[in-house]
C-alpha cells in the first residue's frame, strides 16, 4: 500500500483545526504517527486513537502521518484524516465518509 501513497495534506493550523500530512512509510515500514498537539497531555491518547482507528479500518499497514493539532474536535480530526487520505490516493471518492 505504501508505494501507492502520495504525499498529501489537509487541514490548517487555525484554532479548532488539525493539519494532517500523509506520506509513504519510512524504510522500516509500518504505521508511524507523529503527533503534536496543544492538548497533548490531556487528549494525546484519544487523538492518536481516532487517527489510527481510521488507518486501521481502511486496512493501511504502511504509512507516515504527521498531525499538528490546534484543539480540533473528534469529528474534525476524522474529517481531516479522511481528506488527507483521499488526497493521498489511499481511499477513493465515495469511501471518504
Amino acid at each position, binding site marked *: 500500500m505504501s508505494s501507492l501513497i502520495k504525499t498529501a495534506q489537509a487541514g490548517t493550523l487555525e484554532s*479548532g*483545526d488539525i493539519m494532517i500530512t500523509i506520506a509513504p512509510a519510512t524504510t522500516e515500514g509500518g504505521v508511524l504517527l507523529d503527533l503534536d498537539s496543544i492538548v497533548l497531555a490531556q487528549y494525546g491518547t484519544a487523538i492518536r486513537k481516532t487517527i489510527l482507528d481510521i488507518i486501521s479500518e481502511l486496512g493501511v499497514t504502511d504509512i507516515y502521518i504527521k498531525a499538528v493539532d490546534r484543539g480540533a*474536535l473528534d469529528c*474534525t480530526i*476524522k*474529517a481531516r484524516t479522511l*481528506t488527507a487520505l483521499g488526497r493521498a490516493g489511499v481511499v477513493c*471518492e*465515495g469511501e*471518504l465518509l
Partner: protein
Amino acid sequence: MELRRSMLFIPGNSPGMLQNGGVFGADAVILDLEDAVAPNEKDAARILVAHALNNVDYGASEKVVRINPLDTFGHEDIKAIVPCEPGALMVPKVQTAEDIKKVVELVAAAERTGQKAVKIVALLETPQGIHEAYNIAKADQRVVALALGAEDYTAALGAKRTKEGTEIFTVRSMIVNAASAAGIQSIDTPFTDANDEEGLLQDTIVAKQFGFKGKMAINPRQVDVIHGVYNPSDTDIEWAQQVIEALRKAEAEGSGVASLNGKMVDAPIVSRAHNIIFLAQLLGLRKEIE
C-alpha cells in the same frame, strides 16, 4: 412552517466556526460549501460539513447546507451531505424550475430510507432566476423558500450595489410576491457590512416592510439585530390582543362587524393579529396570551 427570521452563514471549511455555529441563536445556520470555500478545498469542506452535521449540536437552529451549483461540485455535495440529514439545502444560482427538478432528483436518490425529506431553499441571484421566481417556487414541494442573492444579481446587471438598495427595489418585490403566491417563504439578501449595525437595522426594517420573512446574515453579530426587527414589539402584541378581543366581543354580541378604536376589523387585520400572536407565543414573548 419553520421560523427563518435569521439564516446565518458559517464557512464550511472552518472547524472553529462550524463547531460554534449553534450558539448564536439564529433560526437557521447555513453551512457554506460554495462561496466561502476555495476550489481546491471543496473536498475538505464537504467532508468536514458532513461530519459536523453528524456530530455538532446546532441546538434549535435549522441545519441548512449551501451546496455548489450542479455544473461545478453540486453532485458530489448532494451525495455526501444529504444522508447526513440537513434540514434543507440552499441551492445557489437557480435559473429555472428545471434546475430545482434536477436537484430534487439527486436529493431523492441520496436520501436514506426513512430519512426526513430534505427541503430546498432556492437562492435567486441572476436576472433569469428572478424572472422565473414563481415557477421555481412551484417546481417542487420541497422548495420552502426563495432567497435573494443581491450581490451576484447586481453584478450581472452591471449595477452598483448600495446600502440604500434602490437597485434591488424591484427584485425584492418580485421575490416576495412570487414566494407568497406559491405559499412559501421569502428570505432577504445579507447586509454585507458587518461593522455597520445601523445600516443593517435600516436594511432589515426595509426587508420586513417588503414582506420578507427573514434575512440572511454573514456575521453572528447580525442575528440579534435582525431578530429585533422581526420580533413583534410589545405594542404589536398589545394591538393584536385588542383585535382578537374586539372580534370575540362582536361575536358574543351577535354582530357581524367588529371594530377597534373606531376602525373596522376586517379579515386582513385579523390575519395580521393572529400572525403576531402566533409569533409572540412561538418566541415566548408573552406567555399570558390565550
